[in-house]
């Protein structure tokens, strides 16, 4: 794929603390690229450096070979940015918001009109064109925010934690929207600190850990490279999960890690063994300790866990 953005050895220091440390990777044209990291990992600083607002101490960021710090004004015209706070005016209608931001990007009235129609259709807000933005629901506002970022038809759309604060249904809608936008040919860069949210969307991800690039690649590449465990999810009655873990360990099962989440027991076991054998073994083992199995699921390790292992620990 054609490289659109090249991040070259970017280092940025704030008050003697390196918030970005020698970051280097590329973002390809038309892909959805995820930036993942915990709070304080340097995601927002990186995104702001990406649009040229934070000049790095060293390194450079090139858009189609042009340094963003030298050609910021031109490059900004090709970027749409939707922050985690909805960058919209609540006292303006949807149309007025889009018109205003279109004007800021130097668009002509005719182009704004066409683009407004197009992006509102894209974000499925056509019926609310004349409604005040402040009267929209949270999900709609997020979509409007994305529409505002798209009104000038940018080549690149940057979404800073686009699913933050949304309920699962809305997250799904936003995910679908992102896919639709990508299908329009826009390169999307999105950040999040929830790996499970961006994993299904992203073609490639970069994991940031305390300002350094901890991992970088497609989810499959990352899993292949870093994930070597299965995840067994058990739901049983009465659900004495600590007892189950102790019993399984005592029975000789190689448990790498375990935790209780949403009244479910999550057990991590080595990937080398056969998955069916694990399930069979667990089902058999529960009987002696008087636990009735309500459900069992075997998962290959998700990027979320991988992220936790790589970027958090």
């Amino acid at each position, binding site marked *: 794929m054609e490289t659109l953005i090249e991040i070259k050895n970017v280092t940025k220091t704030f008050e003697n603390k390196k918030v970005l440390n020698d970051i280097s990777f590329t973002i390809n044209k038309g892909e959805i690229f995820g930036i993942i990291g915990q709070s304080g990992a340097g995601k927002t600083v990186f995104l*702001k450096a990406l649009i040229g*607002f*934070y000049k790095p101490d060293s390194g450079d960021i090139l858009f189609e070979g042009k340094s963003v710090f030298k050609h910021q*004004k031109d490059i900004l015209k090709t970027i749409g940015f939707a922050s985690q706070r*909805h960058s919209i*005016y609540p006292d303006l209608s949807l149309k*007025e918001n889009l018109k*205003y931001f279109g*004007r800021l990007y*130097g668009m002509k009235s005719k182009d704004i009109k066409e683009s407004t129609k197009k992006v509102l259709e894209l974000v499925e807000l056509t019926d609310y064109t004349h409604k005040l933005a402040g009267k929209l629901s949270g999900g709609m506002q997020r979509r409007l925010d994305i529409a505002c970022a798209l009104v000038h038809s940018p080549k690149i759309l940057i979404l800073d934690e686009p699913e933050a604060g949304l309920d699962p249904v809305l997250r799904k809608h936003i995910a679908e929207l992102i896919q639709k936008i990508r299908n329009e040919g826009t390169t999307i860069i999105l950040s999040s600190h929830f790996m499970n949210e961006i994993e299904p969307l992203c073609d490639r991800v970069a994991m940031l850990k305390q300002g350094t690039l901890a991992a970088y690649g497609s989810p499959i590449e990352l899993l292949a490279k870093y994930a070597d465990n299965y995840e067994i999810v058990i739901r049983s009655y009465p659900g004495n999960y600590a007892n189950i873990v102790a019993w399984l360990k005592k029975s000789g099962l190689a448990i790498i890690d375990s935790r209780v989440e949403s009244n479910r027991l999550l057990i991590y076991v080595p990937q080398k063994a056969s998955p069916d054998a694990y399930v069979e073994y667990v089902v058999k083992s529960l009987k002696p300790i008087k636990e009735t199995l309500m459900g069992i699921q075997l998962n290959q390790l998700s990027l979320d866990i991988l992220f936790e292992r790589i970027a958090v620990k």
Partner: protein
Amino acid sequence: MIKKLFAIIEKDVRQLVHSKSSALIILISPIVLMILAGLALSSSGLSGVKIGVYAENTLAKADAGTILPVLDAKMAEKGFSVQYFSALDACRQAVKDETTHICVEVAEKEDKNLANIDSRLMYKVNFYVDYSKVRLVWAIVNAIRTIVAEENTKISTEITTKLSGKIDFAVNEITKNQGKLDEIIRKGEGIRNTFSTGIRTLNEIESYITEAMTISGSVIETSDSITTNLDSLLSYSSDAKRRLSDLSRLNPALASSISAIQGNLDSIDSFANNIAIVNNGLEEKARRLDSRLDEISMNQNNVASALRNAEPLLDDLLDSLREVKSGIDKLEREFAWAHNIKATDIMNPIPVEVLPLSGEVTEIGSVSSALTYLDYLLPALVILVIMFVATLISSTMVIKERKSVAYFRNLIAPTNSALYVVGVYLIGLILVGMQATLLVMVASFFFGVVISSYLSIALVLLLTISIFVLLGVIIGYLFNSEETTMMGAISLALVCLLFSALIIPLETMPGIMRAVAQFSPFVIAETALRKIMIFGIPIINRGAGTIMMEPVKLAVIAAVLFAGALVLQHFKNKKEI
């Protein structure tokens, strides 16, 4: 660039229009403000004020000759509500309790003799005031002082008129008696002259007496000599007779001759004796004359001495009379100065009249070519409204924008950040300009305020709005929350208000504060607007070749503030990104 600027302005206007309460307050507030100001200024402002009165002597109230009934009537005329107290403490407590606004005590003076002149002079008026309500106190005190002053003037005029009458009477009496005194002095001088003549005559008499005494002495001496000669003659005659007798005896022939001779001698003796008798009489008379002359001389001396003694006394008397005359003449001249002076001239020797520089002040609301109080207050009122509205609107717009979720999108848009400052400035200019225009229009159409020189006024308002909008922009960028921004804007406006002549006259401020106040845009703008609106002074007077400096100063301040706002915005944006 221009399209972007219009987009920024349009965005702000649309936001305002969509927020109906904001739009309404921008349009309604100046109208309401102006109507309130107009109505407030149309009232005298003190009707309904409660005055507590305590009269030390209850007679003071009842006695028609005292000042209190007059004060009572005048206070009622002014619309004051008067409440009488039987004790001073109660009167003063009422002010503390705010049931009255002031306590007026009508007390008696210590000098009771004044009652002989006029019974009203027996009283004095004391005010007990709550100085925490400075402006109200001064307004009431001034009003009551005016009432008391009117009565004071009346009493003083009456007494002065009486005094003037007495002076006139004294002057007439002096003039009348001046002639008599002149006559006395004249007569005295006549007597003095007579005295001198008498003394001179006496002196002459004395010489005559001396001469007479010399003559009488000579007569006596002559008489004595005659007596002696007569004695000698008689002796010779006796001797001759003896010798003749002898001769006759010796020669009797000769006896007859000798007898004849002897008879002749006897006749001579007899003649000599007669002469002697006459001479003795003459001598005696001469001696008596001498004696009388002595007495005359003595008396003359006595009289002369008495006259000489009296002479200086008479001189003294005359001198005294002349001095009295001179004193009375002076008195007459002095009184003549006071004569015909009117009591009002003494009471009010320098009549003071406060006149407006332009037109005649009339009540608010009377449509007249003369200027109203509102005319005089309008410049300050307009600047005051502009100052508060402009600083608040622009600072609120800036901080709202900065705190707006959409702010970030503005920052990352490829738009020159200066455009946002220009946008806020222009929208502030439009909104506040609209308000100022509404304010002036309401003042003009509803309250008859005379407006002329629209262009000059517009220019000054434009510069003033620019300054306060830009100050608001700077405040909006300086502070980081809406609350602190509002406080900053209000504080700035209050400081400007404090350093204006609206609360404290600039002239009464300490030197440094006065100097600082001279640079206050409020003061400069208000001065410029006052010059144009009230005195009709043009900004550029081509005839006189002069230019009003205030608009120039405002333009300089506006330019500096604009540059400051841009610099501040640049740094703040950098920080916020």
